[in-house]
């Protein structure tokens, strides 16, 4: 029986790695389209957000084709994340579907993760299996972030952007096929070597845009982030920074200076991703970047809450900011429209010498 997961808030490559490490396989999800959106809208509570409706529509389609075992990663941090454990709700929503199980397989710590995995797979999951599966999952997520961010910048910096696209594809494929921590380490080394060997363009980028957020927008081949990445091939540097490393829990010592930097803006108890995004935005401003691009998954509560914060950061420094909510396969036209206008704006400012 196939296991399956959501296409939103999860990453197939990483989740597939986790399941394979435990000897299971992940079903390929159905395509999201108008029929799935309609189905989700029928099923969902009217107040549920659109992305939530898409998830439910996709889930219903997967149940209709016979998949029964839903396993999903979700956050359990201090932030107001909507994708926290919804398994009880899902089980009640699909209570009449024989054999349906839904479990959150992420955890707030090792004990929690082991307990969640055992709920899903049964008590045969050993501690060392759990440790290995999560090492693979987090290793893949971290490596995907590295590939994503490095290739985004290289699309501008390299004189062979088509080779960068190829490298990105090869890297994602290799990450998908890397079965354990050692294989991932080798893939990471291979990627570093290949990326370092790419020829660079002699001329500097025409614009430098700092990208923050996007921790939950993980690499998928030709995902909607490709629209954003495509901007880099116009000679514009997209420097996408993220200190959000899942493998290594962020220490308080590391967070303290970042929190201090963000203190004028982040007043409440912010999540790690908010602290990093805000700190990176201030870094980009200090380093004289032409603009800040804030990308976040549609409906991501912590990043939505961060939007007005970044607006204040940017306004105080008179640096243009564009916040882009990245939906799932929808509204590419609107995304292109805003990006194009943002770049026009930055170019006009630069040509007038208004950039700091």
């Amino acid at each position, binding site marked *: 029986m196939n296991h399956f997961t959501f296409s939103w808030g999860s990453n197939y490559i990483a989740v597939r790695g986790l399941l394979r490490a435990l000897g299971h396989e992940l079903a390929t999800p159905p395509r999201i389209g108008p029929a799935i959106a309609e189905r989700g809208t029928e099923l969902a509570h009217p107040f549920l957000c659109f992305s939530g409706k898409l998830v439910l529509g996709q889930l219903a389609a997967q149940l209709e084709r016979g998949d029964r075992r839903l396993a999903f990663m979700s956050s359990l941090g201090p932030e107001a994340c909507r994708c926290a454990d919804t398994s009880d709700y899902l089980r009640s929503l699909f209570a009449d579907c024989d054999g349906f199980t839904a479990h959150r397989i992420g955890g707030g710590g090792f004990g929690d993760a082991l307990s969640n995995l055992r709920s899903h797979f049964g008590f045969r999951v050993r501690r060392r299996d759990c440790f290995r599966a999560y090492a693979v999952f987090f290793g893949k997520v971290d490596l995907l972030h590295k590939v994503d961010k490095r290739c985004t910048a290289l699309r501008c910096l390299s004189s062979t952007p088509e080779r960068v696209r190829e490298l990105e594809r090869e890297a994602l494929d290799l990450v998908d096929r890397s079965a354990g921590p050692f294989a991932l380490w080798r893939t990471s080394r291979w990627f570093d070597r290949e990326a370092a060997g790419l020829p660079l363009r002699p001329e500097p980028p025409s614009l430098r845009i700092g990208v923050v957020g996007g921790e939950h927008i993980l690499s998928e081949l030709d995902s909607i982030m*490709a629209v954003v990445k495509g901007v880099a091939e116009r000679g514009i540097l997209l420097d996408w920074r993220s200190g959000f490393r899942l493998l290594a829990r962020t220490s308080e010592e590391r967070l303290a200076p970042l929190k201090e930097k963000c203190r004028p803006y982040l007043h409440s108890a912010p999540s790690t991703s908010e602290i990093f995004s805000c700190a990176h935005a201030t870094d980009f401003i200090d380093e004289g970047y032409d603009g800040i691009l804030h990308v976040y998954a549609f409906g991501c509560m912590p990043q939505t809450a961060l939007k007005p914060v970044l607006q204040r950061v940017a306004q105080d420094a008179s640096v*243009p900011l564009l916040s882009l909510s990245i939906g799932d396969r929808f509204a590419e036209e609107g995304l292109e429209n805003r990006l194009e206008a943002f770049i026009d704006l930055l170019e006009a400012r630069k040509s007038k010498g*208004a950039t700091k």
Partner: protein
Amino acid sequence: MKRRVWIGIDVGSITSKVVAIDERERMLASTYERTRGRVVESVKDSLRKAVGALVGHAVAGCGTTGSARKLVGALVDADVVKNEITAHARACLSLHPDARTILEIGGEDSKIIILRDGVPVDFAMNTVCAAGTGAFLDQLATRLGVPVERLGDLAAASTRDVAIAGRCTVFAESDIIFKQQTGHRIEDIVAGACRSLVRNYLNDVGKGKAIEPPVLFLGGVAANRGIEAAFEEALGVPVTVPEHYNVMGAFGAALVAKETVVSATKMRSLDEIRSSDFRAETFTCPHCPNACEIVRFVESGSPVATLGGRCERWTAEATRASVPVHGTESTPT
């Protein structure tokens, strides 16, 4: 010798606008018409009216803007395809160089552009909701059984404040029904709806933006004096509706074309456009789980351009012209 003109075409969700400008950036002709879902026919018709009537002129360049800018760009072989934010900013800075804020409300989208010292420095567009757009007014007019063009006059005749929930068109409609049932005058309901649209706009699109005078108000909705008055009341500053408020996007596209096209235009002749059987078709690419929605433009039975794929699979198929994107000038042929 024929005098040169530059054409700007702005096709949005509801209306099509065409403008022709001369060497001195004066507007020689303009049209503003409802598209009624027939983009190709509407553009052909508007071009015939605006450009066909100009005797002794030769087209030197063409720019397109609006949500259908790529489709129209492929239809006419435009020299430049530009987003509507840049086009509106360019037009306003030409006619009102001291403007500091542009409010624009169209059929299904709305935007704000902040200008400082003749340069756009910030902008925002509405997100996933059309509550603060012309669609809201269309729905209101239908509900009240009055032509949408009369809403401004009705709002001006209001004598009492009536609060309408404007956060969402669905809630607004039920609120309007309730207000009708409880005996409020149509004039007061319309004025209340105008205020709620403005409130929604300022809380969504305008949130956190440094709105400073001079403020210009553009787009089809600017014809509604009730909205203009509601903006003035909410902002506490005068709001100016410029003379060409409803064709500023097309005007901006023409200006951008004039600045960009340095050699011969590649725009097709009006006869070619008129006789073209150009059409758009849409299909879902079956080759990977992305399921990209591909828009293919077909003419004389052959694909001439494609849009929408995240890889290069369908681009090579187009034979006549690729759609110029991101406002770059295509190489003249």
